[in-house]
């Protein structure tokens, strides 16, 4: 079954190349695009089920044994991430069939989306550090082009900031990979996990850890490296920012999780203590940034940063292992890592959905500024409820997914006696609720400002009709994701069980190493 590992990379690539031939046929493109995503979704589900049943899967491409060739590896974390990517890809691609204009479609919107997913899935599945770099480039380039697609002034300005800061990340990553290869002579991550400690150079390893923390930290938009995110996310069409919001930073978080559980675990007290500290700052700066925004998608963008902090918190809690390696500590640390995985899953579903909602709001009222919006609760109660599900979930209101994510982190933190970070996490929760209710009050509760003055400025009825056209294709994915949020919340037990299993794998890197089974090189 391990050929299954190649599909999440090959399928989007083939679909993307196929669609290049359909440039002048938008309907066919949309159809292929949706079908391709559904295929990816089916693959991802199969992959996760297989990995959950049979354990970590690995394949050596070209038949070259690790570490000589490139390995693809799917542990639970990778398989979960691929499934999440496919899920949101499906939602966004359906949403895009009506929300993306024909010109953007003609200039390759759909192929780019699939290439982006190829890059993302590749990054999740690769077991090779340099190959990870390559997939980072794939997703960086495709996201950059998606960001500029349309060429509007704001877009280009945002995209330049995006690409410049991300290129620094790439440069650091490349430098780090080069030095790491220079030290260990290998790039296979499982092999690195064996050889880096064997090199007996913890101090050099620490410096390398810092380089990767910086490189992936920029990608993950942690404090104080997050600037590219709020500068660019809101400039593109909603569908594009939705896919970015759920995926790009999470690739960075994934990479951090991977290397800081597999490769850089020699000086946990230093590296993970630093991560925990950065997690706290990231939560706080992100949520404070959101509190002062007055535009729908800008608020959401800053919240991404804040939530990244929560994800890192679970990883940072490993620091306790530096001074206490008891059974109870390991159990709590496992819970923290499981909580991180759960948080990522929750966040991707919820954040994508909120951006999709913002797209519908902007389409119907022509702006994203809170003070010019209003009246949705009165006119569209069901749609309003569909906003409430992800919004309240993000704020951690039970029994939605975000509550469990936060609860697990808080529990792990309290069990490990890391009271400071727990206090921050809880306080930031209140502020998140503040932001979400701010959107709710302005966009849904407050009367529509356009209706207060004389009704002359109301759009003509044909224009209204054109806005309404195909709205179901936009609301459908929103409802689907809201349903998943509810499901994660109500079936928290089984889902958290998978996350916990993933935490066990992360805390015991030998499982991953054994699956890749690098041969002893002479």
């Amino acid at each position, binding site marked *: 079954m391990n050929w299954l590992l190649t599909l999440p990379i090959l399928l989007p690539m083939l679909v993307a190349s196929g669609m290049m031939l359909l440039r002048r046929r938008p309907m066919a493109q949309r159809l292929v695009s949706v079908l391709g995503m559904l295929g990816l979704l089916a693959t991802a589900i199969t992959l996760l089920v297989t990995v959950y049943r049979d354990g970590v899967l690995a394949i050596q491409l070209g038949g070259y044994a690790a570490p000589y060739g490139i390995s693809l590896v799917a542990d639970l974390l990778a398989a979960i991430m691929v499934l999440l990517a496919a899920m949101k890809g499906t939602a966004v691609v359906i949403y895009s069939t009506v929300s993306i204009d024909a010109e953007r479609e003609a200039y390759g919107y759909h192929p780019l989306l699939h290439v982006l997913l190829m890059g993302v899935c590749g990054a999740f599945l690769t077991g090779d550090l340099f190959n990870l770099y390559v997939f980072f480039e794939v997703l960086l380039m495709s996201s950059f082009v998606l960001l500029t697609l349309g060429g509007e002034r704001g877009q280009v300005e945002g995209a330049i900031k995006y690409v410049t800061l991300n290129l620094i990340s790439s440069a650091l990553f490349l430098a780090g990979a080069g030095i790491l290869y220079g030290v260990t002579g290998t790039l296979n991550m499982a092999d690195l996990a064996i050889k880096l400690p064997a090199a007996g150079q913890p101090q050099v390893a620490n410096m390398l850890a810092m380089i990767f923390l910086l490189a992936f930290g920029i990608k993950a938009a942690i404090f104080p490296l997050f600037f590219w995110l709020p500068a660019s996310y809101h400039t593109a069409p909603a569908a594009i920012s939705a896919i970015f919001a759920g995926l790009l930073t999470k690739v960075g978080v994934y990479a951090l999780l991977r290397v800081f559980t597999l490769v850089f675990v020699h000086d946990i007290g230093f590296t993970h203590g630093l991560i925990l500290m950065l997690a706290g700052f990231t939560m706080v700066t992100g949520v404070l940034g959101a509190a002062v925004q007055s535009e729908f998608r800008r608020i959401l963008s800053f919240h991404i940063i804040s939530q990244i902090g929560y994800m890192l918190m679970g990883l940072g809690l490993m620091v306790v292992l530096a001074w206490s390696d008891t059974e109870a500590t390991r159990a709590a640390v496992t819970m923290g890592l499981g909580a991180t995985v759960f948080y990522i899953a929750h966040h991707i579903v919820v954040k994508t959905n909120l951006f999709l909602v913002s797209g519908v709001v902007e389409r119907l009222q022509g702006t994203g500024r809170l003070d010019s919006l209003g009246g949705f609760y009165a006119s569209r109660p069901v749609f309003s409820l569909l906003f409430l599900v992800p919004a309240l979930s993000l704020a951690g209101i039970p029994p939605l997914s975000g509550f469990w994510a936060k609860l697990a982190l808080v*529990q792990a933190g309290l069990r490990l006696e890391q009271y400071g970070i727990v206090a921050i996490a809880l306080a930031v929760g209140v502020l998140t609720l503040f932001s979400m209710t701010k959107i709710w*009050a302005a966009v849904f509760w407050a009367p529509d400002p356009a209706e207060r003055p004389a009704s002359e400025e109301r759009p003509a009825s044909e224009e209204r009709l054109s806005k309404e056209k195909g709205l179901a294709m936009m609301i459908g994915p929103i409802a689907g994701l809201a349903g998943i949020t509810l499901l994660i919340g109500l079936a928290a037990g089984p889902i958290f069980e998978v996350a916990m299993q993933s935490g066990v794998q992360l805390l015991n890197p030998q499982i991953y190493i054994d699956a890749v089974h690098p041969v002893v090189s002479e």
Partner: protein
Amino acid sequence: MFLLVLAGFLVAAIAPGVERVTGRLAGVVLAAAPLTLFAMLLRRAELLEPGGRIEAGGAIRETLHWAPQLGAQLSFRLDGLSLLFALLITGIGGLITLYAGSYLQGHPARGRFFAWLMVFMASMLGLVLADNVISLIVFWELTSISSYFLIGFDHAREAARRAALQALLTTSAGGLAMLAGLVVMAVAGGSWEISELLEQGETLRGHSLYPAMLLLILAGCFTKSAQFPFHYWLPNAMEAPTPVSAYLHSSTMVKAGIYLMARLSPALGGTQLWFAILAIVGGATMVIGAYLAIRQTYLKRILAYSTISALGVLTFLLGLGAAGGEAAAGGAAPVETEIAVYAAQAFTVFLLAHAFYKATLFLIAGSVTHAAGTADVRRLGGLAKAMPLTALAAGLAAFSMAGFPPSFGFLSKELLLEATLKQPSLAILTTAAALLGGILFIVVSGLVAFGPFFGRRQTESPPADASSPTEASPHEVSFPMWIGPLLLGGAGLVCGVLPHGIGEHVVAPAVTAVLGADQLVPIELALWHGFNLPLLLSTIAILTGVGLYVLHPQVSRLLQSGDAAHRFGPEAWYHGGLEGLLAVARWQTGLLQNGSLRAYLRTVLLTAIGLLGWTLLRVDSLPLGIGPWPEKPEEWFYANSYRLAVAGMILLGAVGAVHSGSRLTAIASLGVVGYGVALIYALYGAPDLAMTQFVVETLTVLLFVFVFYYLPNSPRQSTPAHRLRDLLIAVAAGAVMSLLVLVAARVQIDGRISGYFAANSVDVGHGRNVVNVILVDFRALDTLGEITVLAVSALGVLALLKLRPRREKLS
């Protein structure tokens, strides 16, 4: 019990549909749901049946799995305390629903109102029935959220939205603190089930984290139950429609904190800390709330402050009575046991009495406002003639609230005084506080229930809020709107006159639960305790209270003048805190996300320098991968002169690229750097790489020249000082990176994979150029990815060139 709670949520889901179908009868139809739950609870609890477990001081428990890894179970437990609350929630809920059906007749959003009301009811029911800590938190937060939507029901008004937000932020901040406290408690006690934690009282109270868990849990209880200084949200919550105020903000939700304190008192109570906090906060809330109440002139606000005061009384009683679970079981001294039992009795009876009269008074306030068109007590009077049934209900409720015999309220006040008088310490202080609270309650009951119906209008001038034309002709409200108040008001009297039944079946099991006793604590409720000190004090209180009521117009004017408390009170802290936080947020965000790409780059680079530099500094000795200083420098210099030349060339190129004002010069200088790197490849035995690099550099420079030819020269934008700063950052970044490479270059271990490639290139990869074989065979996936990158770049260039925004194309 799970099914009962679930049923509540299901009713909420269908409520808007039902409302649409049933139209005028919606209130009646939907009220059937809570009342059915009420009946089912009675059945489930086997109340009034022989051998009922709960009446005997026992409990019924059921469990469903939810997320056991996180300690979450859907476990429910019905004992005397939860039954008491559950009956209040469903019983009052039914009457409120009935009332609301008429109150909101014709309101376009009535269906949604019912939905949220039912969500609240089900959550509240879940809260008091939950035996699992996490389930309790889940329902707790759900009550906060449904309260948010109910307070903001009239959401077109900004005041309603603000009040809703204030209540939500205050209660959920407390709720999150409580979450932390409860998790700490569960971890310390080794269980997630409340009933099991109650057995661990000894362990919990002796735990090193006991003060922390207690304070955190109390933070949740105090915010939820509007204790001073968190009480400010409750009066503002009166923006909600009256049925909501009557239901959530007087009789049920605000008692959630009280419930939790009562529930946990056998485990956490009985310590000095517990007594100090609860008695002080409760006492302060009681007195301050009552004082603030008589300053108000609008019905609902008076009632809101008096509710705060009542909640203070309940907290106060829990503080007094918590002599611990062992007390009742006989472990403690007899005096303490007696106080505990008295306090628990007073608590339970007052809770019931308050729920009866306060819900009644709120509903009546709604009816009066509805019928008379104003809510200003100074403009209300003499309504008894027009609204006889409402007036009757009001009279009954006022009686109970004022504590006149033979009402249930009288009974509770007697018990309260018994409990304070028996205190071994501070008896005078606590009794005085209780008396003061009682006196002010009499004034309040006069203001809201006596004055409007039986008194005279104090002023005839048209009210400021004269929005309704009905003021001229007050009229009796319809059946659904008077039946609830009348039933609840009547209950206060019936329970007072015939206290035995309710004492045996409801109060005793609840007292048992509050005390955490293993066996039923027998209770004998009686209206008449003989001539004793409490009766004397009651009489004094009643006389003083009536006197104060008569003088109220003057007193009120006097109190109005001192407004300083309002400006510096806790509500000002809330606003100040929020504003301050937003100011910090603005400052921070302006500092970090200031829009300048240069600033972003600077921060990122400085972070990199900082983190790497710090790590370098942590290294004890800095072993660099360079050899010792040459013995004969001249010889070394000559031998390496060509290398040095290349290095110098690269450096010059770099400086030139940065320093040049023209783009063309800069790009040419970069080309020099690239050629220099290619030369290094050539010198160190990688001619193929060098060739590639030469080609790439040449092509790049040419392409850039083509592009830049069309661009104007950009003027310098930085001041010399900025350039100096940037220079320092750049040099530092370069230095750190170089050091890092030098340190790393020293370390090399065996077992490199490059040997394998050289050895197997021909046999396995069938190619003589090793680099090529690596690219297309050993690591073909990398190449596939890079090809994709190229394709995407091409697509991007095409789109950037051709796909322009519409308006630009037109111009």
